[in-house]
């Protein structure tokens, strides 16, 4: 394991650095840079609370967020995407790697030192019911950031809060109401208003719409869109809904068991995913068109569940469920490399691209089963 870590730590930054210069945006526009980020939650047992293992929630990821863009992060539950969100906002302290915000290393800053940075990085939470204090009025909730940061907005806090409420499409007169008087969609707007209060540069949204009804989802997605245009915000949007992520993101990171397996421009990822996991994930999304029911042979059914992050599989973590896995997948972890401009993939045998390990053709037995299952289910339909 330690070998792998070193490999990603030393090998990666250079690779992703070169990606950047190639792109339209210049190097200086990187707002957030994450290198070899890790978070292991210790598991303690017994009288002495000795550490017996660790949940490797995030296990060595590298990426950059550029100014003004939206980075989408997708993956199944337990893949570490929410932990990642909390690490880059420094709600959690990383156990390895670095987080740089605007060129400043914030990985291990203490509460006091973090305060200035808190103004620039804000978070929108998934559950609008538990992220608002039921005992506080909306005015207090949205005004709290001003108080905590000692900011005195022009025209007073109340006026500023009312302006924020109207920005997110709420009635400014609701200043004195309590959270329970609002619907789910309205509460999510309150959470957004609070996040915007201090004019942040980066907003990390953890499943911002998954608790909302379809019709309300669209309202909130559009609102996030508009706010980005108006205020020049940068977003990291964490979600499990692949259609929503496609709609909001410029680039997308696909996570699996604490690792990024593919990081690509949106259209490239959706048009020709290269990691088998990305492909399986995309193919599993139900399409709202009954006419396509007959032609679903391209669906890939993954077997079983995501393995435990306490003892992740060796080599490529996806090899236990992959239909293309060969010997090398079990032994060597594939590095995240840029195979095509704007598309980084960690796979020995990528889809829609030439094989990275063509000499290794012996399929693993689990891959055999997975492949068979896929062909049979394709035939059935």
């Amino acid at each position: 394991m330690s070998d792998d870590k070193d490999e990603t730590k030393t090998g990666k930054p250079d690779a992703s650095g070169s990606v950047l210069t190639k792109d339209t945006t210049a190097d200086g526009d990187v707002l957030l840079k994450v290198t070899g980020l890790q978070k292991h939650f210790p598991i303690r047992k017994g009288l002495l609370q000795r550490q017996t293992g660790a949940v490797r929630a995030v296990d060595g990821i590298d990426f950059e967020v550029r100014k003004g863009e939206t980075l989408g992060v997708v993956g199944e539950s337990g893949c570490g995407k929410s932990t990642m969100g909390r690490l880059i906002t420094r709600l959690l302290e990383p156990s390895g790697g670095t987080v740089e915000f605007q060129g400043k290393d914030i990985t291990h800053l203490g509460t006091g030192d973090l305060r200035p940075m808190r103004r620039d990085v804000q978070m929108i939470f998934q559950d609008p019911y538990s992220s608002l204090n039921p005992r506080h009025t909306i005015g207090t909730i949205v005004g709290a950031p001003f108080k905590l940061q000692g900011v005195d907005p022009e025209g007073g806090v109340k006026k500023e809060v009312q302006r924020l409420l109207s920005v997110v499409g709420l009635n400014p007169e609701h200043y004195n109401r309590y959270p329970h008087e609002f619907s789910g969609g309205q509460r999510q707007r309150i959470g957004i208003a609070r996040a915007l209060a201090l004019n942040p540069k980066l907003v990390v949204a953890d499943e911002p719409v998954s608790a909302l009804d379809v019709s309300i989802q669209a309202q909130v997605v559009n609102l996030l869109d508009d706010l980005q245009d108006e205020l020049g915000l940068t977003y990291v949007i964490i979600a499990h809904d692949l259609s929503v992520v496609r709609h909001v993101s410029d680039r997308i990171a696909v996570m699996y068991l604490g690792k990024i397996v593919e990081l690509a421009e949106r259209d490239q990822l959706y048009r020709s995913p290269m990691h088998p996991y990305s492909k399986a994930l995309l193919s599993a999304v139900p399409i709202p068109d009954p006419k396509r029911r007959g032609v679903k042979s391209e669906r890939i059914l993954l077997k079983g569940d995501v393995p435990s992050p306490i003892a992740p599989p060796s080599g490529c973590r996806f090899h236990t469920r992959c239909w293309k896995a060969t010997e090398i997948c079990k032994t060597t972890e594939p590095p995240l490399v840029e195979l095509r401009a704007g598309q980084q993939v960690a796979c020995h045998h990528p889809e829609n691209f030439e094989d990275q390990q063509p000499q290794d053709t012996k399929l693993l037995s689990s891959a055999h089963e997975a492949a068979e299952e896929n062909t049979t289910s394709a035939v059935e339909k």
Partner: protein
Amino acid sequence: MSKLDKAALGEPDSVAPSTADDAFLSVRDLRIHFDTDDGLVRSVDGVSFDVRKGKTLGIVGESGSGKSVTSLGVMGLHRSARAKVSGEVWLDGQELIAADPDDVRRLRGRKMAMIFQDPLSAMHPYYTVGQQIVEAYRVHHDVSKKVAKQRAIEMLDRVGIPEPAKRVDGYPHEFSGGMRQRAMIAMALVNNPELLIADEPTTALDVTVQAQILDLIRDLQKEFGSAVIMITHDLGVVAEMADDLLVMYGGRCVERGPAEDVFSAPRHPYTWGLLGSMPRLDREETDRLIPIKGAPPSLINLPSGCAFHPRCPYADIPKDNVTRTVRPELTEVGGSHWAACHMTQEQRERIWTEEIAPKL
């Protein structure tokens, strides 16, 4: 409600002459009201539909539209002290609303079974998965525990749980989300029910697991030929599973018909709104979603006239303010395709083809 109302809701003969006979489940003018301190909640207010054997009916709607309450009403799971249930539910020729609760209890679990949204709260944490399936089986079959356990293992195997003989003694918390949902499906199917109601069976699951579970439900339906009611808010899931579709809004059915027709030529502005709110992977990327303005209505104070009118961008098209005063009834817009809207067929067809469809 009056006869007039009933007729307009689509009595069996008017829906499609054949359905009344071969429908396994027929629901007619189902009303479920709850008396609360704040007033009368009309959760379901006159819903009718049929499900045939081997077919799947999808019920879609937002939270609070009455879709889950409908399914619980069919199962007879509302406490009589709290809920006022009226209307008719015919299951295989037997009426259930007026029937003796004991008779309904004997049917429940055997002839009709339900899969709930959240398997962690629907299963008892104190008993093993096996014990719970065994109990469900022995309630309806006079067999020994040993035989029942064998049956439980068989079912767990059938729904794709590895090492069923071992997992049968596991507790729900030891199962992952997808496995738990499989176990619940096993429990629901242990008595070979002819009607299966799945209430948001995959909402709590990841897409890859969702695909597995939908596949499983489809396979099992093929195998046992049961009628399935699929309740969900996800139009993608419905499009994949359902033969017929029922769109609910504010406790009433606003559109219903064969799934293909409802998706290719929806005839209610709410259905348009649902389709427009949803980003889709099968279409070119659009700049903006077209949301429905406002929020779902309160079921205590439903808007007058058409319940959807405050959110409907076309509410002013029908003359004389009719959308605000008169409740539209379901009318047939094409072969067993019904919609409840005041706009004329031509108006709706034009809006759909010219304004809505190109933007989707």
